[in-house]
């Protein structure tokens, strides 16, 4: 079938079951936009390209499918960069398509030209600069395959304008063949057997579940393993939701911002089973003392993660679900011990339930929110900063894919667009965004999409008129010398929301808190609830 390169791209996207594209048009990408008019694919017009990637990311994390975004050459493409890096660090499957100046103009610094494949190379799973339109169907097929398989990640396809306009015979490949890319799904049987043996010998096991558990849809297997070997489960920030937060065996989050019980349990464990986690510095603290008494098992689909940060006794390269399914075939039984009593004591020691009386404290508000929402259909999205840590610690997440946050890169401004993407992915979800005044202002322009796309996103804004997390760092490590952390020019957020057509209310008294939370939950439309937050509220020392 004869068609233009642009038509071939759109047809290949349809072939990959793409339903939504988040994007922003511009000169070099116009052939694609023209072809898009004849397609059933919905295009969501964003307000800034960085948000398009975050929106695609929110969409991908809810659906488990590849999120797609599109931008023009030059500044359109460079605006994608932070979004792509964010998705890369959190292993989110994204295909980003950018327009590019015509092939013969490349390298001449023409209007809106930038080397976007060069720029994104360090934080893309892979990228392509397409120079021959006949390669487009194959490249799109490869892009989707690479983005969604193995350890997922973003893939960028840069399409020069003339390539998009060239006529070709459309031939979509039946299968993708890449001799340099063969992800390992099945864990090595002998290594799995070694894990089974290590479990038999241990008496104080801990499971550490990361984002890979969610990617691999292996929450059931984690729950089974935990029950079978009576092992408590700590999650990383990306792993929140991999194990029900209200389960007696749940330890909460691990690491610098994590719970006492999780960190204590890992320190005392004699077997640590790390599953789908990369053990980043925020999770481990000093790697010399991390799980110093434990035999460490590390299961991950990315071989490069194993042994990168922490020495591993039993490495297994493989998909989490496949590997755990095999492991669960063994008759797993550990040594008896008082381990679970110890765990319970550590959990009780700093348990916050009931500690909070009604107040404007974030701990109270998030605990109350957590108690009141319907967890089966609520997705909590956070931005980055203090509120993110509070949400991670005080809001109990019960299911995978119901807690979205920028874990690896810590991108302020992630929250609002990710919430928009999450809502577009499934309008039956209740989407609540927890954000701060700093973060919200980094993607504020996307508020327009709530009206434009008729989306219901509830926004809980902790406003302390400051960059609270940075201020806290200055308090702790810079002798309270506060430099450039007070956002004195902040707007009236309620009026601002109203300007975008959202009802809004401000809470600055304790006796208004409960009602405001009810209003947020019960509202049939998008709503912004601004909570006046004391600038001295801290995330640490965390005593969850």
């Amino acid at each position, binding site marked *: 079938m004869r068609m233009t390169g642009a038509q071939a791209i759109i047809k290949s996207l349809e072939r990959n079951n793409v339903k939504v594209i988040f994007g922003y048009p511009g000169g070099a990408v116009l052939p694609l936009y023209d072809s898009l008019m004849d397609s059933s694919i919905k295009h969501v017009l964003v307000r800034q390209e960085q948000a398009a990637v975050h929106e695609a990311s929110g969409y991908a994390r809810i659906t488990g499918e590849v999120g797609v975004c599109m931008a023009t050459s030059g500044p359109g493409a460079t605006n994608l960069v932070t979004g792509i890096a964010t998705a890369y660090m959190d292993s989110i499957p994204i295909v980003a398509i950018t327009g590019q100046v015509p092939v013969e103009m490349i390298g001449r610094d023409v209007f809106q030209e930038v080397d976007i*494949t*060069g720029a994104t*190379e*360090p934080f893309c*799973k*892979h990228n392509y*600069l397409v*120079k021959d339109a006949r390669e487009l169907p194959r490249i799109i097929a490869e892009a989707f395959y*690479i983005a969604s398989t193995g350890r997922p990640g973003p893939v960028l396809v840069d399409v020069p304008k003339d390539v998009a306009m060239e006529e070709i015979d459309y031939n979509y490949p039946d299968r993708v*063949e*890449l*001799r*340099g*890319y*063969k992800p390992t799904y099945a864990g090595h049987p002998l290594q799995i057997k070694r894990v089974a043996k290590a479990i038999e010998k241990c008496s104080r096991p801990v499971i550490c579940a990361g984002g890979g558990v969610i990617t691999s849809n292996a929450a059931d297997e984690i729950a089974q393993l935990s029950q079978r070997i009576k092992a408590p489960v700590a999650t990383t920030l990306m792993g929140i939701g991999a194990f029900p937060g209200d389960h007696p065996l749940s330890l909460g989050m691990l690491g610098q911002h994590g719970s006492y019980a999780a960190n204590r349990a890992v320190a005392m464990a004699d077997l640590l089973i790390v599953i789908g986690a990369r053990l980043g510095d925020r999770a481990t603290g000093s790697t010399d003392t991390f799980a110093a008494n434990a035999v460490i098992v590390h299961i991950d689909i*990315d*071989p*490069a993660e194993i*042994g*990168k940060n922490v020495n591993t006794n039993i490495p297994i390269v493989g998909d989490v679900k496949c590997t755990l399914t095999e492991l669960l075939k063994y008759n797993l039984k550990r040594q008896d011990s008082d381990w679970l009593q110890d765990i319970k004591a550590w959990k009780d020691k700093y348990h916050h339930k009931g500690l909070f009386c009604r107040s404007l404290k974030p701990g109270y508000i998030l605990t109350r929110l957590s108690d009141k929402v319907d967890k089966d259909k609520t997705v909590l999205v956070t931005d980055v900063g203090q509120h993110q840590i509070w949400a991670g610690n005080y809001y109990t997440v019960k299911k995978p894919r119901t807690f979205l946050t920028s874990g690896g890169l810590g991108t302020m401004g992630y929250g609002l667009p990710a919430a928009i993407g999450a809502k577009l992915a499934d309008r039956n979800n209740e989407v609540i965004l927890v954000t701060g005044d700093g973060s919200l202002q980094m993607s504020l322009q996307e508020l327009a999409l709530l009206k434009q796309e008729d989306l219901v996103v509830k926004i809980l804004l902790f406003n302390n008129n400051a960059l609270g997390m940075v201020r806290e760092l200055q308090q702790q490590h810079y002798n309270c010398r506060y430099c450039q952390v007070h956002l004195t020019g902040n707007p009236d957020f309620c009026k601002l929301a109203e300007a975008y057509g959202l009802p809004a209310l401000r809470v600055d008294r304790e006796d208004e808190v409960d009602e405001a939370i009810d209003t947020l939950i019960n509202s049939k439309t998008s709503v912004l609830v601004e909570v006046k937050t004391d600038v001295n509220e801290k995330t640490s020392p965390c005593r969850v």
Partner: protein
Amino acid sequence: MKHTLSVLVENNPGVLSRISGLFSRRGFNIDSLAVGVTEDKNVSRMTIVVDGDNYTIEQLTKQLNKLIDVIKVTDISKDSVIRELALIKVNASLSTRNEILQIVYIFRAKVIDISKSTMTIEITGNSQKITALEELLQPFGIKEMVRTGAIGLERGQKVIKYTINDEEE
């Protein structure tokens, strides 16, 4: 310790930048890098000499393997033949020519250009051999020198295989 890695890559544009970029961004130090097409025109072979301990080499190998364009990474440090090539332009007057030729002869190098006042010498060998020749020619005055990175193949019947469906890999 120095390691020599043979990296088979898809002969795609940008692949060299992907690999050299990976070295700098992950903090690995390249001693040398040589690249050229192989018997399969779609595949290039890079020979990379890198200094590092076992942890570094393991990480480097894994990170290289993560690149989609990388087909196979093999450490050929043990039991292989490794060669570099250098061209050295040295001052050579009527009175020193013979002396230089003797050195060239001992090293089994070649004179590939000659003028009234210079000679250009081609030498292949391992790194030490080239450095040794360089030192011996130094007293005459080296005007210019260029050397390739090391390239190498494993000895004997061993070859680095790759196929589309390389199941056991």
